[in-house]
């Protein structure tokens, strides 16, 4: 897990602890018998949530598409997961991370709703899905070529990056 919090009210260590706690609660508490089947998709899943108030910024979680498939499958205890499953599961992860960060702020602040987008390499299926702050869902999908290369699960592919960035007030 890589952590970046240069302009954050919480330390990188705090964020590391939050990330590990969230993953532990969501993943290790689940039935390990479920066998995740990562999909063929390359690319990234990018989720973020806004914090506004005395400190305004955004908590962002970025994970490989294959890693996101595994996370969603583990959270849902499902052998296969849909695009919507992945978007929702990663969105919930960043929602919980954002809540933890907000909980450490000294000044009153508000948490937005998670926004999730997925992207893939130009030769594979491309899907993008967004949830606006008003809750509206937008989705766009382009078809893949006939054969997408299989990607083996590895530690690198499941690596998660958590970042906090500050917004102008």
């Amino acid at each position, binding site marked *: 897990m890589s952590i970046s919090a240069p302009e954050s009210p919480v330390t990188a260590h705090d964020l590391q602890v939050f990330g590990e706690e969230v993953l532990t609660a969501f993943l290790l508490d689940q039935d390990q018998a479920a066998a995740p089947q990562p999909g063929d998709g390359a690319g990234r899943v990018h989720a973020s949530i806004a914090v506004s108030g005395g400190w305004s910024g955004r908590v962002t979680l970025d994970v490989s598409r294959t890693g996101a498939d595994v996370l969603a499958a583990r959270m849902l205890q499902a052998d296969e997961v849909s695009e919507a499953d992945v978007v929702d599961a990663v969105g919930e992860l960043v929602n919980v991370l954002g809540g933890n960060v907000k*909980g450490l702020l000294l000044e009153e602040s508000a948490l937005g709703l998670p926004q999730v987008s997925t992207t893939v390499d130009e030769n594979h299926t491309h899907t993008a899905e967004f949830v606006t702050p008003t809750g509206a869902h937008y989705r766009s999908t382009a078809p893949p070529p006939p054969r997408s290369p299989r990607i083996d699960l590895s530690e690198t592919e499941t690596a998660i990056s958590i970042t906090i960035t500050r917004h102008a007030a």
Partner: protein
Amino acid sequence: MQALVIDDSRTMRILLRRQLEQLGYDVLEAADGQQALDVLEAHRDAPPVLATVDWNMPVMNGLDFVKSVRADGGFRDLTLMMVTTEAEHGQIVRALAAGAHEYLIKPFTGEALVDKLDYLGLNPERSVA
């Protein structure tokens, strides 16, 4: 016993449904506060005994849902448990003042949920038949 899970995340609804069903609950679902009010209205004659309520949801948030339910005398026996990432003391006080009975902060373990239900006397596994 019937429970209503209110969360805009389908993932969370599935996780909570699974845990509550393992305890013996029949589970209803709603994706926001307004949907939850509609579900309660449809079950007014036999409402659920427990609702788990997320805070941040589109359309109607969890706090407004709690206030709406408490303003309706028909659901006095419905126990409301906030299940949310909102972890500040002030938020917890606001929710309890609005009429929530318990507060569970995400992420939580299955054991933490069971502890809360035990405390509320709403764990079907420990209910006397």
